[in-house]
């Protein structure tokens, strides 16, 4: 076991990584949104098919996954020195590095930099353009900036749809995956100033409308905020991987570029990108290669942004890092393959998870960043049938099913420490009793003596209704008629005690 020390433990995660209400309750509401479920089922099934086809083309895919996983494991083992190396190299190339313990600190740093570099417009407000970024969604940057007079314009098409729709993202890669094109057309007609009133729901027309809307912003806004897919320690290089080219505009045109990057995004060497640039596009969009990959290293005089800032964000990551098993969640490269294959996500959608990180990775990452006792994050690890599809799809082999089970145990132990070991629910009581019965063959035999009576009381059509927690089963499923005797007692009668 390796131990990574990052100094004093920091405050757990803040921002949009806490499920406000228990998952089963929100999921029930979301399950009722038929349009959303139809949109989502169609979209995830398309991406699943594309991913499988692109992955099947790579003969050494499993080796690539192993290598990606090994690189990330090594990064977590020596994260402190890699971060310092990264800071040193960014600074040497004329960039500036800021350290943020949590969402509040990161928001404050970005706000100060924007106020320093963006002029106040006639409206009395400042403006920034944004590259799609999970880190800034996580810290709630747009909302924070808005409160202090700074308007942040999302330039990724899907993020723009979410922003104009006053909506929340429901997927880390395709934030508007829950919307179809008719809904998008309505949002554009309602929210986009000077949009063509005859706009159709043709995807090309919708893209063109957003192009026209955004082009003026690209050309006139002097400050951009981005996230980063990778930060290279040996060179101080930052990278954004995208499809639309809006990111390229944001990281090249403005005078000032502020990047908010989670500390786990570090890769030791530039050469490591060789692995991750094969893993990421195939796993996320099901493409061999994504259309735009931008790299920038500090400041290049006379070319591109002249004020380059990086905000290194902890926000609970060191908490996850301190968990010997949980730290593997920090290997995540935000490809979203796990949510695209998840049967739970496919039906509930991303909003059910509360956090900006939905799906299987969100179900482990959010409680690891905050602790299971933050909000209803204790319900997230149970939001899985443990079918294992996420583990198979993960390009860096995060064992999500096992981590879900470990977090369920952490939840159990946390509650036991707070309120004692007395069962809190009928299910807990049943499991405690079952542990006693099921840890001894003789006790099982005694318990099974109830079978003949149960058999008699039921009929061949089974049990349609049970009280209490068992009713949650019989609500949608009939229980079969119990047998007249257990196998154990049959064996004893037929074969003796052998």
């Amino acid at each position, binding site marked *: 076991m390796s131990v990574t020390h990052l100094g004093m433990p920091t405050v757990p995660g803040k921002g949009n990584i806490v499920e406000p209400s228990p998952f089963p309750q929100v999921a029930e509401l979301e399950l009722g949104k038929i349009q959303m479920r139809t949109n989502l089922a169609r979209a995830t099934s398309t991406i699943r098919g594309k991913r499988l086809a692109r992955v099947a083309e790579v003969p050494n895919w499993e080796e690539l996954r192993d290598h990606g996983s090994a690189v990330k494991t090594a990064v977590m083992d020596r994260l402190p020195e890699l971060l310092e190396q990264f800071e040193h190299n960014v600074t040497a190339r004329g960039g500036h590095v800021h350290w943020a313990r949590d969402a509040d600190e990161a928001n404050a740093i970005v706000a100060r930099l924007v106020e320093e570099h963006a002029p106040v417009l006639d409206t009395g407000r400042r403006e920034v353009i944004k590259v799609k970024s999970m880190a800034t969604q996580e810290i709630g940057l747009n909302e924070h900036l808005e409160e202090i007079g700074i308007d942040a314009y999302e330039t990724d098409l899907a993020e723009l749809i979410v922003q104009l729709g006053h909506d929340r993202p429901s997927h880390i890669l395709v934030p508007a995956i829950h919307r179809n094109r008719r809904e998008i057309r309505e949002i554009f007609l309602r929210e986009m100033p000077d949009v063509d009133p005859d706009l159709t729901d043709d995807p090309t027309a919708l893209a063109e409308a957003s192009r026209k809307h955004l082009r003026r912003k690209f050309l006139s806004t002097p400050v951009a905020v981005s996230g980063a897919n990778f930060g290279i320690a040996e060179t101080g290089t930052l990278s954004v991987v995208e499809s639309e080219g809006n990111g390229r505009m944001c990281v090249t045109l403005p005078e000032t570029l502020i990047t908010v990057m989670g500390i786990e995004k570090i890769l030791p060497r530039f050469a490591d990108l060789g692995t991750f640039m094969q893993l990421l596009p195939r796993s996320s969009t099901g493409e061999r290669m994504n259309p735009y990959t931008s790299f920038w290293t500090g400041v290049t005089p006379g070319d591109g942004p002249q004020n380059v800032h990086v905000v290194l964000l902890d926000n609970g990551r060191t908490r996850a890092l301190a968990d010997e098993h949980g730290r593997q969640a920090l290997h995540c490269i935000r490809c979203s393959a796990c949510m695209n294959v998840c049967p739970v996500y496919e039906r509930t959608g991303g909003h059910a998870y509360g956090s900006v990180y939905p799906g299987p990775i969100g179900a482990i990452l959010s409680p690891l960043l905050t602790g299971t006792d933050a909000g209803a994050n204790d319900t997230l690890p149970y939001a899985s049938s443990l*079918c294992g599809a996420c583990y198979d799809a993960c390009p860096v082999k995060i064992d999500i099913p096992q981590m879900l089970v470990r977090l369920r145990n952490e939840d159990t132990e946390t509650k036991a420490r707070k309120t004692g070991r007395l069962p809190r629910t009928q299910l807990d009581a049943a499991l405690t009793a079952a542990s006693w019965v099921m840890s001894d063959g003789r006790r099982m035999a005694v318990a099974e003596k109830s079978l003949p009576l149960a058999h008699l009381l039921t009929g061949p059509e089974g049990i349609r209704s049970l009280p209490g927690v068992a009713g949650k089963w019989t609500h949608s499923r009939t229980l079969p008629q119990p047998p007249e005797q257990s196998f154990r007692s049959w064996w004893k009668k037929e074969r003796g005690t052998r």
Partner: protein
Amino acid sequence: MRIALFATCIVDAMYPDVAKATVRILERLGHEVVFPAGQACCGQMHINSGKFREAYPVVRNHVEAFEAEDWDHAVAPSGSCVASLGHQHPMIAEHNDDPELSARASAVASRTYELAQLLTDVLGVTDAAAQLGSYFPYSVVHHSSCHGMRLLRLGDRQLDLLRSVEGATVVEPEHPDACCGFGGTFSVKNPQVSAAMLSDKVDALVTTGASVCSGGDASCLMHIGGGLQRTRELMPAQAGVPRTVHLAEILASTKEDPLVLEPLDAPASRTPARSSRASRLRATLRSTPTDRTTGALR
């Protein structure tokens, strides 16, 4: 060979015929079957519910029960329970500061096989009709359970055996690798999501027109079977809703001793209730909750 049968708790208590069928198959091949009497459960229900403390005695009991007998290989008619032995028992032992039990659990797990895995990889069964005399004249749709597929990497072992059964017509469902939504306590902790997954699974199975849904895990089959039975109750006019039969019972079925499927809509009560109290209880158990009619499956 001396083969230890791990019946698993659900088969032992709810589906004894599956264990009997497993015994018949192995004895037909000339092997000796032993049933370690101390066995109870793999502990997965506790482990997957996050009760690592409560799972510990269950895991220890399993290891001790199987160490108490001499056997060459162990077998269970369940991919999920076998996967738990290898993937979870050492973790539970280590979590409870018992590295010694972890090593012993790994040793037991390394010699324990899922039924199709044992038949194919160890006992060399490739043709069920020829080698086991398997005969099952029905159309069958197979559910490949998640843990067999993804934790044990069973691949097509179950399907290949099924395809080699005389008389069986195997049909493919839509999304064959989709989870049925059981997930142990997931089905009661997130009942609506579980039911939504089950509903899609039931649709996919019914659409095939098969008369039987087979599988290698009694737990998944209990869940799927419960959904199929509910479909029959809610939609009596729906024709061709398959019934669930474990793969072991299909492989054990022969021309001489066939598994005959009774019509499902047979008259309900065979034994008249003996007391009024019993009949009241029976009536309660068979009653239909009022909200059922709102379409609980959707």
